[in-house]
């Protein structure tokens, strides 16, 4: 992948150093959001151009059905809106209405906006977790019976094309 230059350390190049620093931060943030690192990344600030190159192997993997894997919880503002169903309250997350029952949803299921996909129990209150948009459950992130915080991702959902 394209290496990023370290900012120069002289006073004269301070504006350039700041700009490079900004580029580096943007690149790191962009890469952090990608599941897989590209072979090359080019960023141009004038008229904003971002180019990424992928290897053939990466293309093949990307085309294959996604292997679901638990994702690290991220602050709500860092993920695409509607791509995750999050805990509405701090509490204990349950995937089914009662022990032994079938889960509300499984990976691959199509869900509709407002459909119940789980429960968070807080102080003996059973708070339903609902899908906020139509789509397909692509990953169950939180385990059944796990303690969850407010806003923690529970499912990853691929919204249906509008």
């Amino acid at each position: 992948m394209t290496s990023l230059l370290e900012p120069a350390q002289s006073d004269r190049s301070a504006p350039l150093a700041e700009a490079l620093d900004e580029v580096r931060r943007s690149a790191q943030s962009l890469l952090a959001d990608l599941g897989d690192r590209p072979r090359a990344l080019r960023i141009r600030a004038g008229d904003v151009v971002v180019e990424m190159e992928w290897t053939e192997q990466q293309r093949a993997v990307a085309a294959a059905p996604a292997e679901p894997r638990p994702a690290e919880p991220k602050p709500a503002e860092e993920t695409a809106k509607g791509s995750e169903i999050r805990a509405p309250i701090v509490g204990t997350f349950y995937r089914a209405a009662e022990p032994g029952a079938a889960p509300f949803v499984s990976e691959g299921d199509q869900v509709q906006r407002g459909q119940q996909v789980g429960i968070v129990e807080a102080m003996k209150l059973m708070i339903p977790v609902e899908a906020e948009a139509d789509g397909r459950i692509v990953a169950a992130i939180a385990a059944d019976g796990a303690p969850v915080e407010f806003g923690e991702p529970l499912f990853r959902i691929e919204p249906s094309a509008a």
Partner: protein
Amino acid sequence: MFRTVLIANRGEIALRVARTCRELGLRVAAVYSTEDRDSAVVRFADQAVCVGPGPARHSYLYLPAIMEAARQTGADAVHPGYGFLSEQADFAEACEAAGLTFVGPPAGVIDQLGDKSTARAAMAEAGLPLLPGTIEPVADAEAVAKVAADIGYPVIVKAVAGGGGRGMQVVNDPDDLPRQYREIRSTAQSLFGDDRVYVERYLPAARHVEVQVLCDRHGNGLHLGQRDCSVQRRRQKIIEESPAPGLPPELVEQMGSAAVRGLLAAGYVGAGTVEFLVDEQQRFYFMEVNCRIQVEHPVTEMTHGIDIVREQLRIAAGERIAATQEELSARGWAIECRINAEDPARDFMPTPGMLTELTFPGGPFVRVDTAAFAGGRISAAYDPLLAKIAVWAPDRPQAIARMRRALSELSVEGPGVSTNRDFLTTALDHPLFVAGTHDTSLVDRLTDSQPREER
């Protein structure tokens, strides 16, 4: 002693409680809203749990979320700080039911003392002097008019469930009474969900003097002297000091023992504050009890050399108060100024925003309680308290000089952010404050909102 203390609060008080927990070797569990994700206490804590979105009613005030956070963190005690759930009997009860120690008085005591009407009855029973007025809530405007005619105008109509300077209305003129009575009842209903009100004589030129009390579970109680909180704007304290200037020693003694007597009679446990009004003839009257740590506790800590949060935790753990009243002694003088992110030039409008630069004062005997840091934000979702600056000196003139110096070192920068720093300096410079003869009308004199004749 406890293993893990959940701090059910935010901002400077959460950090201040966390620090004492750390000194006692206790694990610190913090709660935070999405608005406070990057806050100082979250970084300081051993564990932090997100309990909800920015609006307090969905996070810091949302009991199920706080109780869940306590469960998830394995806390065995909960410190409520001040504000939020700190004086909610339901919270103390829920903690008890969950097998957690609530760092504060029992739920029943919070219930009794949180209701102004039953608090006045309990304190009258314990022999504390009350202002002329009603103990029971008044039924209608006619009843208020009758009481007001008996005790004389001006009167103050107060919400039974009020507190924190909210939910009260001064009535100067009998003709205004019906309208103002209706207004305060509707305000009380919307603020506290309880429209009951009572009436007492209003003292326009009184001093607000409070007594810090500690009571343990073994029936011991003592007081840590007085704080004068007469510098208030719209009944919000902005400068507090300990001791209260110019009170005769016998009055100080009477107020201290009355406060301890009242709280012990009510079955109080923990740190509590009894607020009094002191009139021009230096007579004192019971006003209310605060069942929690107070914002202004640092001035008492500085004059007495006692960490009040440490005492709260020790008492909650069942330990006895370590000292007797006779063993306690206060030294010197302490003053606290509340630095608010607000603009005095725009009627003290809060000024939330990003803090690009922040320099706090230092030097001898200066204490800064804050959770603010450069690069952090002052959220619009909560109160605008940015920091508390407290100073200690051997006497009051030196304490005032030290506070002036400390305020001059304060530098707060950020787009759109202002503070009340210069306003506080003006108040410190006022001849009445310098002389220690000021009362609760001082800020009105400075803002000219209610011009008054110099007495």
